[in-house]
C-alpha cells in the first residue's frame, strides 16, 4: 500500500490547479419541520397520544396497589412461553413495569413530537487555564508555603513528614492485626486425625454415609458404586459443642469443608497404583473430596474410566492411578485416606490424611 500523505495530495493539486486540499464543511443542514410543527391537528393528536400513555401509567399504578392486597400470594398461573409461574409476582411485576414504562414512553414521545427539534450550537472553549491563571495559582501556593515558613523550618518539615507518613499505621495495624487468627497450620488438620486425648482417644474413625450419617459395611459397597462420606468424629465435634454450651452447628461446616471424602470400589485388578490398592480394603478406596485446584467437591464419578471429575473447572482424577490428575488445571493428586474394617465389619480410617487436603498453599 502506498502512503497517502502530502505527496499524493500535491500530485493531484498540481494536476488540477487551484482546488483546495480539503472539502469545506457545508454547515448544519436545513431544518426539516415535523408534521406537528405546522399542522395543529397533528399536534393535537400527539398531545392525545402522550396523555393516553400517562393515563395508562396511572391505571397500572392503581392496578399494582389493588393487586398488592387482593391477589393471593401463593396462586400460580400459566403464562404462555414461560410456563407456570407465581401469579402474585407476575401481576405486581407487570403492573409496576407498565406504570414506569408508560411514563417513560409518554415523555419521550412528547419530546419527539412537540418539543423544539431545532439543533442548537454551543461553542467550546479550550479547557486549559490562561498562563496568568496558572502562574497565579502556583504563586499562591508558593506564597502560602513561604508565609508558613515551610522552606526555612526544616525541623517542622521533616517531623511533619514523619508524622503524616506514620499516622495511618495504627489504623492499618488494627484492621490487619484483628481480622483473623493466624493459626493457619489448621489447614493441614482434619477430623480424620485420630484424637490423642478424650474419650475417643486412639480410636479408628468410622466412615459415615453423607447425609444419612450411618456407618458403612464393606460388603455394602458394590463394585462401581460411589459413597459420599464424612467422619464419625463430626458427631463427636457436635457433642463437644453441646457439652461446652455452644450451638451444635458451630464449626461443623468448617470441618466438613476439609473432611469430606469420596469412597469408590474397583475390581482390585484394575488398579495401576499398588499404593492406592494397598491403602484401600478389597478394592474399596477413599479419597479426599476437596479438589486440589481451588477446593470444590470432586463428586462426579465415571464408572467406565474410573475417573473422578470436579464440576468447577473439570480437573479429572484417575482412581486407578492413585487419583493423579489426568486432565484439567489441578496439579496434585487427591490425597488418599487409608481405610480398613473394624471388628464389626464397618469401614474405618486408622489414621488421618498424610498431607493437607484441598487447594495448594505456599507452605503446605
Amino acid at each position: 500500500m502506498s502512503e497517502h500523505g502530502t505527496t499524493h495530495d500535491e500530485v493531484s493539486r498540481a494536476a488540477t490547479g487551484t482546488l483546495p486540499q480539503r472539502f469545506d464543511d457545508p454547515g448544519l443542514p436545513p431544518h426539516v419541520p415535523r408534521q406537528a410543527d405546522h399542522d395543529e391537528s397533528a399536534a393535537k393528536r400527539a398531545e392525545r397520544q402522550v396523555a393516553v400513555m400517562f393515563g395508562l401509567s396511572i391505571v397500572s399504578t392503581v392496578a399494582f396497589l389493588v393487586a398488592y392486597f387482593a391477589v393471593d400470594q401463593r396462586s400460580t398461573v400459566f403464562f404462555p412461553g414461560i410456563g407456570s409461574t407465581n401469579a402474585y409476582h407476575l401481576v405486581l411485576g407487570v403492573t409496576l413495569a407498565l406504570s414506569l414504562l408508560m411514563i417513560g414512553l409518554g415523555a419521550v414521545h412528547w419530546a419527539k413530537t412537540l418539543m423544539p427539534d431545532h439543533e442548537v450550537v454551543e461553542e467550546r472553549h479550550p479547557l486549559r487555564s490562561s498562563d496568568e491563571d496558572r502562574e497565579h495559582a502556583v504563586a499562591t501556593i508558593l506564597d502560602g508555603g513561604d508565609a508558613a515558613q515551610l522552606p526555612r523550618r526544616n525541623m517542622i518539615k521533616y517531623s511533619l513528614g514523619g508524622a503524616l507518613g506514620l499516622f495511618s499505621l495504627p489504623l492499618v495495624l488494627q484492621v490487619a492485626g484483628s481480622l483473623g487468627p493466624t493459626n493457619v497450620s489448621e489447614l493441614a488438620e482434619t477430623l480424620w486425625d485420630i484424637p490423642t486425648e478424650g474419650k475417643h482417644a486412639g480410636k479408628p474413625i468410622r466412615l459415615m454415609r453423607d447425609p444419612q450419617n450411618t456407618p458403612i459395611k464393606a460388603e455394602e459397597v458394590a463394585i462401581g458404586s460411589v459413597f459420599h462420606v464424612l467422619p464419625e468424629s463430626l458427631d463427636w465435634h457436635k457433642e463437644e459443642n453441646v457439652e461446652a454450651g455452644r450451638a451444635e452447628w458451630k464449626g461443623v461446616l468448617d470441618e466438613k469443608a476439609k473432611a469430606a471424602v469420596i469412597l469408590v470400589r474397583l475390581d482390585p485388578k484394575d488398579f495401576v497404583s499398588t499404593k492406592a490398592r494397598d491403602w484401600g480394603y478389597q478394592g474399596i478406596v477413599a479419597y479426599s473430596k476437596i479438589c486440589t485446584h481451588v477446593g470444590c467437591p470432586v463428586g462426579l464419578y465415571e464408572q467406565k474410566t474410573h475417573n473422578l471429575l470436579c464440576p468447577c473447572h473439570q480437573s479429572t482424577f484417575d482412581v486407578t492411578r492413585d487419583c493423579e490428575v489426568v486432565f484439567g488445571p489441578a496439579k496434585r493428586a487427591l490425597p488418599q485416606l487409608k481405610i480398613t474394617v473394624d471388628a464389626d465389619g464397618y469401614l474405618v480410617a486408622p489414621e488421618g490424611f498424610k498431607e493437607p487436603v484441598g487447594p495448594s498453599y505456599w507452605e503446605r
Partner: protein
Amino acid sequence: MSTAAAPRGAAPRGAAALRTDDPAVRPEPTGTVKKLGGLAGWVDDRTGVAKGAGHMLKKVFPDHWSFMLGEIAMYSMIICLLTGVFLTFWFVPSMGEVPYDGSYIPLQGVQMSEAYKTTLDISFDIRGGLLIRQIHHWAALMFVVAVMVHMFRVFFTGAFRKPREINWVIGTVLSLLSIVEGFAGYSLPDDLLSGTGIRAAEGFMQSIPIVGSYVAYFLFGGPFPGEAIIPRFYTAHVLIIPAILIGLFTAHLLLVMVHKHTQYPGPGRTNSNVVGFPLMPVYMAKAGGFFFIVFGAIALVSALFTINPIWAYGPYDPSPVTAGSQPDWYMLFADGGLRLLPGWLEIPIFKWTLSLNVAIGALLLIPVMYTLIGIYPFLEAWVTGDKREHHLLDRPRNAPVRTALGAAFIAEYFVLAMAGVNDILAIKFHLAINSITRALQLLFFVLPVIVFWVTKRLCLSLQRADRNLVLHGRETGNIYRSADGEFTEIHEPLDPYRRWTLVQHEVGTPLALGSTKDANGVESPLSKKARRRARWSQFYFRDSVAPVTPAELAAAHHHGEHDALPSAESATHVGPSEH
C-alpha cells in the same frame, strides 16, 4: 477576600456600616422573574443557584443512540441502589444457623444460615419481596453489561482521547468495581451455588505466594467458611463499594459536564462546537423518560424471567456436588481463565508450593486486564504523538488499528468466557471436554491475531467504499445505454452534507524513522527509544486510507463521463503512487 482585605475602621461606622454592601432594595420583580418566587426564590436568596442553573439548563447535548449506553448504566445503578436499600430491611447477613420455618415447603425444617433463610423469606413471605430481589439482580446484570458496552462505544469512537483520559480511567475503575460489587452481592444469599463461588475465592487467596494462607484466614476470620465472610461481604456490598461507586460516578458526570459531550462528525459539527438539544426541555424529557423506560423494562423482565432461584439450590454445604456450577456471566471470563491454565504451572520450590496455575487466572488476570484498559489512552497518545484536544469522534473504520485492537480484545474475552462454559459446550455439542479445552487454549493465542487482521482489513475496505461513494456517488439503479451500445449505471453524486461526513477526517502520518546515531556516530539510547516509538507509529498508521480531496472528485467526474467505473480497489490508487 476583598472584605478581609478592607481596612477596618473606615467610615461609615456603627450599624449602618454593616449594610453598605447590601444591594439596594429592588422594586417588585415583574414578568418571568416574578415566577421565581415562593420556595425557589427562598432557596436562591440563600444560595444563588439561579445564576448557575440557568446556564446548566441551557447546556447542549448531542443526540445519538450510542450515547444512551452510559445512561443505561447510570439508571441501572440507581435502580440497584434503590432496590438494594429495600433488601437491607429484611436481609440478615449472618452465617449463624437456624431451622427454616417459612412457607416454601420443600425446605421446611432444614438447617440453614440466616442469610439464606432471610433471602427465602424475601422471596416467599415478604409481599413483593421477590419482585424487588429480581429487579435488583436483573438491574445488576444490566449495569455490568451497560458499563461494558458503554466502554466499547467510548473506545471504538476514540472518545477517550485528550482531554478525556481521566474520565476513561475513572470509567475503568467503575467497570472493575461493578463486577466486584456484583460478585459480592451474588455471594450474599449463601446458597449452594454462590457458596461454591466463595469456596473457590478462598482457594484463590491461598494461591498467593508466601502469605496466601494468612490472607485467607484474615479475610474469612479463620478457616473456610467460618462465620465472618458473609457479614464482611455485606459491608463491602452495601457500604464500601457503593460509596466508591457513587463518588466516582459523580466525578465521572462532572467531568462530562466540564468537557461537554463529544459528538459524531457531520456537517456543522466541528472540534470547537457542540451541536444538539438543550437540557431544558428536550434532554430533560428524553433522559428523564428514558430512566422510566429502563426501570420499566427491568421490572418487566423481572416479572417474567426468574434469575437466581436460590430456593432450588439449597443452603450452602461444602460436601454436596454442584454440577454445572456457573458464576454470573461477567465472571465467566475469569473462571474460563482458570479452566485453561495447565496444572504444570504449579511449581514446587524446595518444600514450598507456588500455584501459578491458580494465581495467574485468579489473581493476575483481572488486574492486568484492567491496567491495560486503563492505560490505553496514554499508550495511543504516545504512539500517535497527538497532543490536541479531540471533541469529534472517530468513525471506527477511520482508526483501523485501534478498532482492530478493540476487536482482538473482545475476541480474547470471548475465548475466556467460552472456556468458562466449556462443560456446557461439551454437552451441547457432544464433544469431549478435553478437545474443547485444548482448542480454546490454542484460540487464546491465535484468535486475537486473526481477529485483529480481519478487522483491520475490514476497516480499510470500508474506508475505500466511502471513497468510492464520494467519488462516484450513490447507485441509482437506473441503467443507461449509450449510443454505441455500452451499459452504464447512472450514479447520483452525494449532496455536500452527506459527503462531508465521509471526507471530514484527517489521516495521521507515521513518525519518521530518524537517524539512530548521534553527532559522533555513536548509537544513542535516546534515539533508540525514538526508533521504537517510530516503529509503533508505523504499526499504527501504516496502510491508512486518505479521504477524497476536491481535486480527486473533480478528476473522477471528468473520468466518469467517458470511462467505465474504476473498482473500489483501484480507487485507492488514484494518482501515481510514490513507489
